[in-house]
């Protein structure tokens, strides 16, 4: 009698087997999704903030014409959303309006020389804030052109023919985000996303260095 009661019917056995199969599929899927999550979108982001750490107050007295030895304070930012550890180099270039900026279509950096650079290794999802305090220490002017010949960035003095602009108008700092590419063993400006597309990131900010500053 007892033996008969403990025996499982053929129909119930089917139910148990089907349940076990479904549970196996669900548990395996959940484990796979946990172990191998869907690759996230890969990108770097960069920005420039003003003296108060906001997207305002970029120039002293809100005047983009920067006089000699007038200190300008910005905060540069880089965010790593590549999903991996990244060796990031932020290259600073000084251009005028006619010099070629980085090209988002061909993913080429600006051909202008790097005047300063910052480097840091960022873990995934890390944000890097860089104080960028600069001032024009020297400049020369001819009839039509102004050349910046002395610049201080974070108390480091740079000298030479750094950039020339017509009447001192429309100088610009360009900040390019580079990263170390282990496959080429070199720094690379563009990165390849998981869908095979190339991307670059850079920021620019304009200023004037006219000889007669507007007050």
């Amino acid at each position: 009698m007892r033996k008969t009661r403990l025996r499982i019917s053929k129909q119930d056995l089917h139910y148990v087997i089907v349940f076990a199969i479904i549970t196996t599929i669900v548990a395996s899927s959940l484990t796979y999704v946990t172990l191998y999550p869907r690759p996230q979108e890969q990108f770097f982001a960069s920005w420039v903030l003003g003296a108060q750490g906001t997207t305002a107050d970029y120039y002293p007295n809100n005047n983009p014409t920067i006089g000699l030895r007038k200190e300008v304070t910005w905060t540069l930012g880089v965010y790593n959303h590549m999903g991996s550890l990244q060796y990031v180099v932020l290259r600073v270039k000084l251009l005028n309006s006619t010099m070629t900026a980085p090209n988002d279509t061909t993913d080429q950096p600006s051909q202008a020389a790097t005047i300063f650079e910052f480097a840091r290794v960022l873990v995934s999802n890390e944000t890097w804030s860089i104080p960028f305090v600069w001032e024009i220490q020297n400049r020369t002017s001819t009839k039509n052109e102004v050349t910046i010949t002395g610049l201080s960035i974070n108390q480091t003095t740079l000298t030479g023919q750094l950039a020339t602009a017509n009447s001192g108008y429309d100088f610009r700092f360009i900040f390019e985000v580079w990263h170390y590419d282990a496959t080429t063993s070199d720094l690379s400006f563009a990165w390849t996303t998981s869908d095979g597309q190339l991307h670059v990131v850079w920021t620019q900010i304009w200023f004037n260095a006219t000889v007669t500053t507007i007050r």
Partner: protein
Amino acid sequence: MSAIAAQEDPQTLAYQAYTGLANVYKENGSAPDLVNKLNTAVELIQQAKVARTKGDLTLATQLEEQARTQLTEVIGQIPAAQRDADLAAANTMLTATLLIPISVSLSTLIFYAALRTRREYERLKLYEMEIIEKNKA
């Protein structure tokens, strides 16, 4: 410090250290202390570059030497970090693999117990009805 490391360019050593650490992080490992040390070395290299630009070769050499020392330490500790990452990855895989049969067995057992309880309830209900029918007859 090894003789090879002493001769190597600190920038090359920094890239080498980064590549090693990137592999550790790729396997879901973590080595924040080594990353911090690498960043200290990277900062020293940047300072050395600035000193060299200014023409202060003595300071530049000193800073590069400090960076080289830090980087040699980082590179020396990467194999241990890599082993830890491998072990952690293997443990995660093992735990996940074991969890599948355990959860399937447990949930199937609960389902079977519930099914048995229902069948027992149906049998008792039938028995009860049989008694009522017998009494009516």
